């Protein structure tokens, strides 16, 4: 089965999950109440910003090492929330960017947050800086900023690679309260070891829904959960029929043939 074009099963799976997500979005917009459990890391954002303001030290928000991508867009959505809080309390928010496009978006986003809170004069354009598009130069730059500015709270949201531990340990050294969220599964252990709050896996994608309680985002979140349940059902069916001696083994073979790329 080639991956150049989707086959019928792949298209059906994506279509079903897509329809479920869209249906839940419509339901939420129609007034349906949807439950979302408490995510401690996101609930602590307010505390982190408040603590930094009390200490009179700035905040730092890193959007990860990837350019314009859905992970970075999600991180920027969280950055907007943090920047509104920072602006409200009159605190500085430093956003080191790894990509020129992200730099431009972040600058506009933070500037408008300060303007919306009625404090345009508190915005410092030098706090939004492009450092480098390379991994370790970026890490070195952020570590330098954390040490020199003695930031009181750090936020690491986005896709990170090996520099994750470098950044979070530097924040530990200066005594910052640290909140991290990343879909990068290999970096989660390092954030768990060094950060006060860590958001794991697809909780990261729930962040914008959690913070804004916007019906569209809540509906999408519930739709995602249903989509995951459907995928789990497929896995269970495939596993249950995998044994060769079973009469339904042909189901498992068909699923493997339709979903396994290559050749």
């Amino acid at each position: 089965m080639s991956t150049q074009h989707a086959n019928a099963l792949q298209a059906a799976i994506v279509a079903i999950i897509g329809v479920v997500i869209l249906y839940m979005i419509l339901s939420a917009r129609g007034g349906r109440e949807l439950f979302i459990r408490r995510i401690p890391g996101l609930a602590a954002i307010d505390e982190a910003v408040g603590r930094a303001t009390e200490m009179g030290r700035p905040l730092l928000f890193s959007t990860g090492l990837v350019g314009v991508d859905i992970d970075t867009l999600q991180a920027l959505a969280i950055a907007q929330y943090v920047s509104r809080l920072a602006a409200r309390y009159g605190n500085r928010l430093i956003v080191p960017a790894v990509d020129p496009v992200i730099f431009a978006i972040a600058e506009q986003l933070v500037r408008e947050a300060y303007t919306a809170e009625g404090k345009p004069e508190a915005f410092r354009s030098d706090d939004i800086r492009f450092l480098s598009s390379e991994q370790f130069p970026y890490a070195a730059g952020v570590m330098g900023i954390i040490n020199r500015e003695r930031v009181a709270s750090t936020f690491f949201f986005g896709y990170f690679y090996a520099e994750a531990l470098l950044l979070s340990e530097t924040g530990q050294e200066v005594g910052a309260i640290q909140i991290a969220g990343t879909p990068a599964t290999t970096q989660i252990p390092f954030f768990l070891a060094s950060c006060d709050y860590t958001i794991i896996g697809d909780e990261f994608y729930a962040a914008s829904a959690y913070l804004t309680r916007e019906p569209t985002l809540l509906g999408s979140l519930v739709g995602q959960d249903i989509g995951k349940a459907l995928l789990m059902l497929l896995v269970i069916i495939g596993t249950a029929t995998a044994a060769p001696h079973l009469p339904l083994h042909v189901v498992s073979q068909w699923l493997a043939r339709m979903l396994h790329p290559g050749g």
Partner: protein
Amino acid sequence: MEQSSQFWSRRIIWLLLAIATGIFIVVKVKAVMYVSRPALSLYEAVERVPADKIIVVSCNWEPGTRGENGLQTEALIRHCLRNGKHFAIFGWAYPAGPQLGQQIAERLQGRYHRRYGTDWVNWGYKTGQNNMVRAWAQNIPGTIKEDILHKPITSYPVMRGIRSARDVGLILEITPSDTLVTYVRFVYGIYGTPIGYACTGVMAPEGFPYLDAGQIVGLLKGLAGAAEYEQLLHYRGEALKRMPAQSSAHLLIIALIVVGNVLYFRARRRGEAPGRRLST
């Protein structure tokens, strides 16, 4: 007081780690590695590549990971040169990657009497990411055009008969990032070209789902993977020489975890606050 103890405990730990790893610069210890199944599979895949196909050594790594990816690249290129397998160095994620691969191949080629252009070539760094890889898989000379020396790649004997991914016997993806999925999606998924994966230790768990699904033929996990490969080549290279230092570092970290927990349980028995809780 707490800050002062934290300050000194950090520095003592760093000094211990420096001694634990640095001592093996002067003390020579011979390390023996038992080769894992993923590394052996990759070795066998390289051995199986037929003479009329080329191996792509995809150097998608940067100088920062030279300690792991650099040694993996050296072991893999050494295998290709030793067995007379034609290979092409290539990169599209980090501009420095192909240049670093070039330095390694140039250093090793004389030992096995191989020549640039006849036995291997360097296609250099190409921009375009996914789009470029898709076009490359369909038409290699049309996409690559020139090598790292700005000469047409079709002028080299090693490129004779190499048109598309169907003429590639194996792709060796050496990287610290998640570039493997591009090759799986646009090359293995369409042309069935076998892929081997050599990654940093921290990225290794992400390679296992692909290995289990048969989408990659083998896996080298960081410095240990490079050492296993050198063991298979019966060559005592830098990776094997550094394994005692890694053993020592791992032992030290385990000892630190044990000491940390002993102190924690003692503090808990005394009723002292254990420090800031970590939460997910």
